[in-house]
């Protein structure tokens, strides 16, 4: 799953090291337009619904945080 997530991220914004970066939002690597694309792609790829309340920097600052959010949402479903 992590590999698939990083593939999506690299497709949307190639200029980042998603293995290590933990400041994707704080450092404006992912902007609001990237987030719009990202949420749509993640929902499609992982068959999960990401509600608007989940769109907070803490959930998108790193690939690990995104994965944790997806796993949590899948678990809740």
């Amino acid at each position, binding site marked *: 799953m992590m590999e698939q997530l990083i593939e999506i991220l690299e497709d949307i914004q190639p200029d980042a090291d998603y293995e290590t970066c933990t400041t994707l939002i704080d450092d404006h690597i992912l902007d609001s337009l990237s987030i*719009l694309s990202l949420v749509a792609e993640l929902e499609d790829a992982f068959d999960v619904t990401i509600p608007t309340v989940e769109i907070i920097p803490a959930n998108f600052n790193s690939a690990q945080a995104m994965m944790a959010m997806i796993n949590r949402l899948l678990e809740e479903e």
Partner: protein
Amino acid sequence: MKSYCSLGYLGIFLPIAVIGYAFLPKKYRWMFLLLCSYAFFWMLSKKLLIYILISTIAIHYIGIWLGFIQKERDEKLSTVERGEKKAIRLQYQKKQRLVLAAAICFHIGLLVLLKYSPFLAKNVQSLLTMLNVPLKIKIPKFALPIGLSFYTLQAVSYMIDVYRGTIKPDQNLGRLALYMCFFPSLMEGPICRYAQTANQLYSGEAVTYHNLTYGSQRILYGLFKKIVIADRLNLLIKSVFSDFIQYDGTVMLVGAVLYTCQLYMEFSGTMDVVIGSAEIFDIHLPENFQRPFFSKTISEFWQRWHITLGLWFKDYIFYPVSMSKRMKKLTMNARKKLGNHYGPLLAGSIALFCVWICNGLWHGSGWNYIFFGLYHFFLILSGSILEPTIRRITDALHIKRDSKGYHLLQIGKTTIFVIIGELFFRANGLTAGLAMFKKILTEFSLSSFVDGTLLNLGMDLYDYVVVLLAVLLVLAMSILKEKGISIRDMVASKPIYVRWAIYYSIIMLIIIFGAYGEGYAPIDPIYANF
């Protein structure tokens, strides 16, 4: 007591509230704050108090209803297999949405009826006249309760947050009532979220020396901005905007620049008084300004100006629209065809359009406010569209985008766009705004700066010098704050005699250079009218 900067509020109402609150036992303090808040409302809007009472009771029971549906859903979910859970969630989501939609329609409907029905009726009448339909529409006129636009947004945010499950419905009507009408933020915001302030308001923390001095510092700074700068500029701005026909483009430009300055000083100064008042009770309201005139883009400007309104629109309009199922589909399809930048921009711009139409209308019922919203929508959208091109041009010209010079250029450009927007915002209607803007373009003459024209607009040389020095002082404070230096902590670390010397100096500055008394007309709270 027409404003938070009046003697009635700062000299009588607030001290009584602070003393009464401080001497009461902790468990009764929230009741006293609620009593003060309703008294404040009553003094300003009399029997229109009924509106906020209805709103409060409505959101209280709607919250409980939503909570009940959620509880029922959770009980059902705990008894079924994993595969059935999705269907149950959807079934209960529909129920919740129905309740929420009805409640939002009620609140927004009331806002539209009271605030916008005269505007709508006038426009329908104009349309009928244009189409030669012999029908006369009675233009309704309603008295507006104070803070209607602010507390309505708070009410809606509370209900949506309960629906989303980010907060639990409040079973305590008193706490919810205080969240809705806390007197310092009632008239002009900041627009608070339930999770930010409700428990602080209810907890009844003691008034300490620290809170009293920190709150008073903030109030004094706000008064300085309001009385020394905003009120002094009022004479000029009133005459320029009401009699603009007799002036040339130079006067229009000066009027627009000084109005932008006045609006910032008035609104941010009032916010300082509001946040300082709450701080005395150890209540920390969200900030509404973060040095907006250091913004490099219009988008950044709106993240620093009236922050709580911008966040409200982002959380309750931008994301719900841009993240709706249809928009997500549109984003995915458009990204495949238009690429990573322009693909999501399509859905983003639809959501942005909704935000800016609402933002314009929130400020008032008039075509100039709609224009104001669309103007910012256009600027932000074109900024996004042009971004890749600008990057390519600056790269080709070897211009460093993170250099100070480039940043200053961006700040200058943003400030010019803001000033043009505020010209339309203040103008007496859209036609007047367009005429004033046309004058700047066609009747601008440098000679007006030296032939004494600017000294015949209600402000003399002394007024200009006072305003200039005061603005420079605020600018210096803002630069320090932008660099992360806290003036308040610096002052607090000084010995008591230095601290009080500073406080007295500010008080003296306000007394000596404040624009009040004969010949001056203090500006009415601008945002209270929204």
